[in-house]
Every structure is written in C-alpha cells, then in structure tokens.
C-alpha cells in the first residue's frame, strides 16, 4: 500500500514539474493529464472512488481534451516564448512566495478539519457523497451550479456572432421542401431548325 502511494506521488510530482518545464506545450498538456491520473490514483487509495473516477471522467476525459484541442492548433514560436523569462522572474517569484505563505498559513491551521467523512466499507462512497451534497451542502452546491451556468452562457454570448455570411440552415425548412419547390417542369416544343435543314437537302 505504501509503495503504491509513493509510486503514484512521485509520478504526480514528476509530471507536475514537467508541465511547467517542458518546451512543447502539447507535452505540457499531456503531462498534466498524467498528473491528474496519478492524483486520481491517490484518491482511490483514500477510498474516495467516486471523486477519483470523477476526476478522470471530467478533467482527463473532457477538460483536457478541449485544452489539447486548442493547444494543438496554436502555432507557437518557442524562442519568442522563452525570451522574457528573466524579465518576468522577479514579479513571478513575488507572486509565488505570497502564494506559498498563504498556503502554509491555511494548511497549518485546522481549517480542513471537517466532520469525519471516512465511511465504513459497507456504505458506498458514492451514496454517502450524494446524500451529503444534496442535504447538508445543497445551497453551496446549487450556487456552484448556477455560477457554472452563467459561465457557459457568457462564453456562448461572447463567441456567438450572427454575421451575414453565416450559412446556417434550418433543418426543419430543409425537411419541409417538396419536389415542386425545387423543380419546375416546362413543356417545350421540339426544335424545328433540323427540319428546315432536311427540307433544303
């Protein structure tokens, strides 16, 4: 058990480090996937199988796919990206140190001591999590859902533009089309020129 934990956490730390150090952004994204995967493994060791699988399902299966999708299409000049490293270093390290201090302050104190959620193996972890989310924490849960909904709607309104060159078609109209709307049958008299030529001969 301990061996598995140390194995997973070393993979997690290594891949997290490679996320910020690798030159190729696609590699960074793939290492982030690997670190999510190892984190899910560690959660499994804590017997939080729902959270572990949800992490894989949501972050690895959906979010990172879209990330990769975008990153792969970017044409990034690596040399240009590396240029400003030393200029940004002071400001970046200042932010990093403040974040480190904040994390130490929070993690040292017992803010994280919530009621004991460790469930006996007879009760499914998924059941337990569901009943807690929908009873004790219903308000924060719903607020989080509404914030996500607002984010979705705003993202769509920011990107959706109705331009004149939009060739979108209405499928209902397409289905309604009848033969008479598209084809016009014309009854034409046959050409007479050929007959004249024949007469001359």
């Amino acid at each position, binding site marked *: 058990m301990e061996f598995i934990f140390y194995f997973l956490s070393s993979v997690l730390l290594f891949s997290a480090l490679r996320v910020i150090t690798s030159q190729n952004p696609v590699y960074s994204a793939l290492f982030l996937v690997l670190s999510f995967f190892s984190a899910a493994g560690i959660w499994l060791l804590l017997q939080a*199988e729902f959270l572990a699988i949800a992490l894989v399902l949501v972050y690895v299966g959906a979010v990172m796919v879209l990330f990769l999708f975008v990153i792969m299409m970017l044409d990034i000049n690596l040399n240009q990206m590396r240029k400003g490293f030393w200029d940004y270093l002071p400001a970046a390290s200042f932010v990093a140190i403040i974040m480190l201090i904040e994390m130490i302050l929070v993690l040292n104190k017992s803010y994280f001591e919530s009621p004991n959620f460790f469930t006996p193996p007879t009760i499914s972890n998924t059941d337990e999590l569901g009943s807690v989310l929908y009873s004790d924490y219903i308000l924060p849960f719903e607020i989080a859902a509404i914030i996500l909904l607002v984010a979705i709607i705003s993202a769509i309104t920011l990107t959706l533009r109705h331009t004149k060159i939009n060739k979108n078609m209405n499928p209902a109209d397409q289905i309604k089309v009848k033969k008479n709307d598209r084809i016009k049958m014309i009854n034409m008299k046959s050409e007479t020129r050929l007959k004249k030529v024949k007469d001359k001969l």
Partner: protein
Amino acid sequence: MEDILFNYFPSAANIIWIILKIIAIVIPLMISVAYLTYFERKVIGYMQGRIGPNRVGYFGLLQPIADALKLMFKEIILPTKSNKFLFFLAPILTIAPAFAAWAVIPFDIGLVLADVNAGLLYILAMTSIAVYGVIIAGWASNSKYAFLGSLRSAAQIVSYEIAMGFSLVGVLMCANSLNLSQIVLGQSGGLSQWYIWPLFPLFIIYFISAVAETNRAPFDVAEGESEIVAGFHVEYSGMAFAVFFLAEYANMILVSMLAALMFLGGWLSPVEFIPDGAPWLFVKVGFLLFFFLWFRATFPRYRYDQIMRLGWKVFIPITLFWIVFIGIMMQTPYQGMFH
C-alpha cells in the same frame, strides 16, 4: 490446486490468479474481434449482393487469421517529421482503455474480474480517455489529413459522451446502483422487467451515441475516406494500424455489451422457463453488433455540422427531459414501472 497455491504463496498466487483471469477475458475478446471483422465483411457482402471472403479456409473462415499475419509482417513506416514517441504511444493509448474497461463487465452472477461498486462510472471514465489515442495519433503524424481527422473525432466524442452519460444516469436511477451486476439483477423477472421499456428513448440515444463514440459509419467522419483519406490513422501501417483497428472493434463489442447489460437484462433469460446464463448475454451482444454492421451497409455518412446538431440539440435535450420524467414518475403510484 487453487487452495494449495493460496496457502503457500498468498500474494503471488493472487496475482497469478488475476493474470489468468485477465487472459481468460482478453484471448476470447481478441478472437471475437477477429471474427467480427469476418462477420462484417460477410454481412455487408451479402447486403450488397456479393459473397464476401470465401477463399481462405472453409467459407473464408481463416481470412481474419491471414489478415492478422499479413499485418504483423508488414513494415511499420515512421514518417520523417513525426513525433516518434507519441506516434507509437497513440495506438497503445487507444487499445489500453478498450481492454481496461472489460475489468468490470459481469458475464454471469459472480463471473466478473473486479466487482466494484462504481463500475458504471469506471467504464465511463475508461471510454472517455480513449479519445487521447486518436488526438495524439493525429498530432504526432504531422500530416494535415490525420490532424483534421483527429480534431473531428475529438469534438465528436466529447459531444456524444454527454448524451451517453445522461442516458446512463437514467439506468442508475432505475437500478439504484452503479454496480453492473446489481443493474442486471434489478432487471430480473422476465422480458417485461428489462430497462429497455421504461427507458426506451434513452436506449435509442445510448445506442446511436455508441455508434458515434466508436467512430463507426454513419458517424465515421474521423476517417472519412472520401474527404481526408483515412483520417487520424492515415500515416500508420502494419501492426500499428492493426492496433487501431483492434481497438475500434473491441470498443464496438464493449458498447454492445454495455447496452445488453443495462437495457436488455444481461445474462437473464427473457422467459421464466429457460434458465439464465452467459449464452443469453452473447446472443444479445451479437444481435446488437449486427446493427453496427447493418448501419454501415445502409446509411450514407452524416455531414459534420449535422452530427454536432444531432448530439447537442436533439439528444441532450431528450435525455434531460426523460431523466426529469423518470424522477417525477418515481414519486407517483406508477413507480413500479420504473422500479
């Protein structure tokens, strides 16, 4: 034999026992994949008024083995400007989840490799990471066609996964469990108790989304031969190409297996007087697999924007409505219909 092993070398014997069980699942799976390709060529052949393979062995029965041998001995060509590591990682990433998902599939009561409680979630997670193989294959090949194919496939799989996940939510509302064995046992009591009846729209949506998830016709725009040559695996040859093929067919069997377990009662017999058993499951899976082949022979390829429209604007609203409908019906006196 088993007892002796467990008494003397508890942990080692345990590991060997698990490996034996894995082999007992994977080898029949590989053989079914091989003969599914044969079956597909025969079925589509007869549908198009041809005979299909009939030269190697009786009725062409050795054709899949001949194909496998041919692919094994072919050269694997590595494009010069490709990303070598990711190029070879991609087929592995495609086949690994396709096999890993089989760990929680029950074939009969107790006949399952890992009887975990969150089995359904595990399968959803495994099928959702299969898309990485396709994306990485397209990017690592350094080819425009492959890249276009992988982008199409990524967008398609992410979209249809949502509809698929929601239709499974309906199943677990009925079964009150995420454990696949429990879901099957919740349908015991004959044909009328199967979840296909209360969840009929979800079954249809699940099956169509499954066709889209496995990149099969009519949703095979990821490889669309007429537009982008062979899509994401255009640069692959020999065994590397065969691995992609293997994963596609293993995934087809997997999603048919899931549909049979969750909507068609799994190994349960449709009538009381015939005993239950694994053969029922295989008959149901074979029946569903036939649909995959039938679709391929019948439907023309979907246009890409229509695929997206179908997923987002038709399937997701229907599943959302049906989940709410089931939830409401469960509070009424008719709840017996929905278990």
